């Protein structure tokens, strides 16, 4: 049977791993992201997500370097997102070692990008990230709140061929109160593709809650950096509470 997944997210700004609190990124956690991935490999993480949250593209080359270096060390799946706005950019990341690409704002602005990516790479390769604020889809790194409800948008991206949804409520991001469980339930019930829950984890309980709300995978960023053997401990806890994860 397919296991539930535990995903570590590396939020990268200007080539460094940073902490995210409601999409504001001030604290640098790791100067060198490769060190973080080395730990996660040893601690049996199921997947790694790397997101470029830089405010502009001036440090983009540093981000390419990060992905390139990470992929050399990462013997688990690596998904990459942030500022991917066309097919060429998506191809570029797959060429330098990503296994999946994550698109967000550009998918919202030109939905055909999803179909184009699916036709070229297959839908299993295309993750659409949905950021939510006040129960509405939010794009442009949290800056623009749209008028569309996340459930409607989730169904649309599925219809256009997306293989997975990466769901984050900005109000919950870094807020340490756990995921927005109602949001997860509503999206999971509306679509047939897997949903990854992200944003707000402080305790291992929150991971269990996310899975019980229907998520196929639970993701977190900040918490994994501050605990030794964090992902191993998280999995042990999840198993104790009846979640089928890979040991």
């Amino acid at each position, binding site marked *: 049977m397919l296991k539930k997944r535990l995903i570590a997210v590396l939020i990268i700004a200007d080539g460094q791993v940073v902490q995210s609190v409601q999409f504001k990124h001030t604290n640098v956690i790791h100067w060198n992201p490769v060190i973080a991935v080395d730990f996660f490999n040893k601690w049996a993480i199921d997947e790694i997500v790397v997101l470029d949250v830089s405010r502009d593209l001036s440090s983009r080359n540093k981000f390419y370097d990060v992905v390139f270096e990470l992929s050399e060390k990462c013997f688990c*799946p690596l998904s990459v997102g942030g500022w991917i706005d066309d097919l060429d950019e998506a191809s570029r990341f797959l060429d330098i070692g990503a296994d999946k690409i994550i698109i967000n704002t550009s998918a919202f602005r030109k939905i055909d990008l999803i179909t184009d990516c699916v036709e070229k790479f297959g839908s299993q390769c295309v993750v659409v990230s949905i950021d939510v604020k006040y129960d509405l889809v939010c794009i442009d790194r949290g800056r623009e709140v749209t008028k569309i409800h996340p459930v409607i948008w989730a169904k649309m991206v599925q219809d256009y061929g997306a293989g997975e949804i990466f769901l984050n409520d900005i109000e919950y991001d870094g807020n340490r109160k756990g995921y927005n469980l109602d949001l997860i339930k509503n999206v999971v019930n509306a679509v047939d593709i897997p949903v990854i829950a992200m944003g707000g984890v402080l305790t291992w309980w929150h991971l269990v809650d996310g899975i019980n709300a229907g998520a196929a995978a639970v993701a977190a960023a900040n918490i994994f950096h501050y605990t030794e053997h964090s992902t191993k401990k998280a999995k042990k806890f999840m198993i104790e509470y009846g979640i089928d994860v890979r040991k």
Partner: protein
Amino acid sequence: MIAIIDYNAGNLKSVANAFKEIGESVIVTDNRDEIENSDAIVVPGVGAFGACINSLREKDLIVVLEDQVLGSKKPYLGICLGMQFLARTSFEIGEHRGLGWINGEVRLIEPCKKEFRVPHIGWNNIEIVKESILFEGISEDSCFYFLHSYNFYCEYEDYISSICYHGEDITASVECENIFGVQFHPEKSQKNGLDILRNFVKII
């Protein structure tokens, strides 16, 4: 030297990295001479069937592969899409002709219940149904990373070496003489995956 076939599909680098990690030299290539001079052929795959098989065809690589794998009996390892290429036909976005080396069809996974979501993404435990050099030292029930929406329905079960369950039986690996295919991603399955690649290297 292992030739990793370059046909404009994704994740070639991940596969190259994994072979390098186990100390094997690789070359990512679409060059006929280099493929002919290699000891084994690996066809990775992140991509859509139609676009990728057309790319192999446009690069005139199908003839080279047939010559090397069917003619010279060079070991072949197809990963994910590289395994599905072995089928006669794929129904991923349209209908496409595959290599046809192992009889069967590639069709969308249509699970009976909603809890089995498609794409089939994540770690699943396999059941080894046939003794295979690829699984030497791999314990029954080991987990591997899967990332696909389509299943290789083999015409003859004898060619299936392992399966997993996701609302239906999924062909996890196939084998026929020097031809091996794995639906999961050994290059992304941490220790178990690297062990599979080590076993493949032993054949060379």
